[in-house]
């Protein structure tokens, strides 16, 4: 029987791994992910989860042992955050290139120094070229749902790529929300056991990951990219199947919220999307023609969907909770690049909420009003760089308060 529990994003992750029947879990604690590790330890200790929990001495080893376990045919899961993810970097690249369907939770947190344990997307965004798929979640239910979906997508024989399910530090990781914990049988039907034909096996000895000459490497890389492209359709397909099975739509590649025929389109990622939708409602009530798209799947990047969405839009305001130093926010840069040569709305990039800076409805409303004001300006049709504004810095607080 499905049941509702009031749980944090971290517990939702742990329940996700349990419902997915992860067979090998290997993880190392870090704030704000710690409860995932603790909860899974409890599940295993109480016999509620039939998994081998390898209690490693670092995140690097966590992903390394997940890789070896996955290569040996087990469904593997790990969770981490920020510095832990950065320490894993080498192994994330490895997991993707080894084409292993590992699923992990990353709790988005800022990188130090200065030390910060609060929400910031740079840890995940910095891994965008790793070859892992990335699913940014808006709420705790979606965290659980995305883990189940991620396994299904990752383990598809045409995909075979690892996935990262992403939840914002504290805003999701430590906030309790009602989450439906699905009936195990229903999940088992949706997600059958992993069955890999190529694995470490004494009956069928093979080598995995040997040295290749330049004459080979590039072709393997291209195959990885083809799987990524294939994954776009797979995300949509699995999203549909998920909806049919569990009656809930996690959002596919990109979630559209009142986007029909809008003049101004706001684009968000992660937990700020919920509040942003409320603000959109208020502005629409005031007569503004504004809508919102939530970028859920950052890798593979849904460029065709974004082109379609921005076709008749005059202004696109993109909120990035991270910043790639020396350039811009990555969502904005990639969106602008996706539409360049197709559509020419005016694009503005708002850098928001780094290191957990609060994004109140008031600040969000001021951002959207700023975008609405751009409607009067000429679109900068030939300019690939988006205009970038850092929102709510201490030096210009007044601008972001009523």
């Amino acid at each position: 029987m499905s049941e509702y529990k009031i749980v944090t994003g971290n517990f939702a992750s742990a329940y996700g791994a349990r419902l997915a029947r992860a067979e090998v879990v290997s993880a190392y604690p870090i704030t704000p992910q710690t409860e995932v590790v603790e909860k899974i330890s409890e599940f295993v200790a109480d016999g509620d989860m039939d998994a081998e929990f390898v209690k490693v001495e670092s995140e690097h080893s966590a992903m390394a042992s997940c890789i070896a376990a996955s290569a040996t045919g087990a469904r593997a899961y790990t969770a981490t955050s920020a510095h832990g993810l950065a320490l894993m970097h080498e192994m994330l690249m490895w997991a993707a290139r080894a084409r292993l369907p590992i699923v992990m939770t990353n709790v988005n947190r800022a990188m130090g120094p200065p030390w910060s344990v609060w929400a910031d997307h740079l840890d995940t965004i910095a891994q965008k070229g790793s070859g892992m798929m990335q699913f940014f979640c808006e709420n705790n239910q979606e965290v659980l749902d995305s883990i189940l979906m991620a396994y299904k997508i990752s383990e598809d024989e045409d995909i075979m790529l690892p996935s990262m399910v992403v939840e914002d530090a504290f805003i999701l990781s430590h906030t309790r929300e009602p989450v439906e914990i699905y009936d195990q049988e229903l999940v088992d039907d949706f997600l059958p056991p992993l069955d890999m034909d190529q694995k470490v096996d004494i009956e069928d000895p093979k080598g995995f990951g040997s040295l290749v000459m330049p004459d080979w490497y590039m072709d393997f890389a291209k195959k990885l990219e083809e799987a990524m492209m294939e994954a776009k359709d797979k995300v949509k397909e699995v999203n549909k199947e998920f909806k049919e099975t569990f009656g809930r739509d996690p959002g596919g590649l990109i979630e559209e919220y009142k986007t029909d025929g809008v003049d101004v389109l706001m684009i968000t990622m992660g937990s700020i999307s919920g509040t942003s939708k409320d603000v959109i409602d208020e502005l629409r009530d005031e007569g503004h023609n504004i809508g919102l798209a939530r970028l859920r799947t950052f890798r593979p990047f849904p460029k065709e969907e974004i082109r379609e969405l921005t076709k008749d839009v005059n202004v696109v305001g993109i909120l990035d909770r991270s910043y790639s130093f020396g350039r811009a926010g990555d969502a904005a840069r990639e969106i602008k690049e996706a539409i360049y040569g197709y559509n020419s709305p005016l694009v503005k990039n708002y850098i928001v909420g780094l290191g957990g800076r609060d994004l109140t409805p008031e600040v969000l409303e001021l951002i959207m009003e700023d975008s609405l004001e751009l409607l009067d300006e000429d679109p900068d049709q030939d300019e690939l760089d988006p205009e970038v504004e850092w929102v709510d810095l201490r030096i210009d607080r007044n601008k972001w308060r009523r």
Partner: protein
Amino acid sequence: MAEFPEKELMNSGHNACPGCGAAHAMRYMLKALGKNTTVNIPACCWAVIPGVYPSRNLEVPLLYTAFETTGASSSGIRAALKKRDDVDDAEVEVVGFAGDGGTADIGIQALSGAIERNTDTIQVMYDNEAYMNTGIQRSGVTPEGAWTTTTPVGSKGDWKKQPKKEMMEIVESHNVPYAATVNIAYPDSFVEKFKKAKEFSGPRFMHIYAPCPTGWRARPSDAVELGRLAHKSRFFPLFEIEHGKYNIYKEPKEDEVIPVKEYLKIQGRFRHLPEEMVEKIQKRVDTKWEQLKKKERFTQEELYE
């Protein structure tokens, strides 16, 4: 003496240099352990020796892994085998096979983690006393006095100043059930000790002395001789530790023992050493040997009787 296993699980055709001790090491190890063995190998000479894609010269499953992950990778394989319905995991030996750098330097954290967690695995350090794959740089296990490309001697005598890191002691402090040193110059005892390791479960550690003619600036035809001289000079003593109990085996008789100088002098990597350094190395070897003898006596008699 038990019969030497005939079955080869390492086929002919490999990418090692002539006289490579590490190549012998794998061959003898697989003879001892048999086909129900998985091998995970990090970056090291042995990441190249099995052959370049799509060739491979091992008849056991081989998982290549990142440089510092050997212990963690073995842990992952073991955990997954436990979940496999089609495998009796107790019948499979999971071997992490790494160089001295991959074991004692960059991989020491993963090794320590794996053996502390009581992982059922044999962790092997084939010791060629430097980072050979990247072209002979010092490791923590390079012996004092040695030339390497990062201890280039130069005009100031900048050879390796620090003594060899004692991995057997580090491993022993993790309370493993079995650890042993073996030498490729003695295939019989090599195979015997690996077979003995196989009888235990839990974390086991094997320190293989694997001469590297290329990196030691020695003649390939001297590889086995180097192993013998290292043993006879007590430079690399053969011993095992079973549940804390030390046992020196194949101990050279007093009248067979040769000066360390005999061992050093056929290697270009020690050519620069002044006489006082040779004496210093001899002294350290003597002291280490005394210590080992005392440990053996203490753990065999006083501690356990």
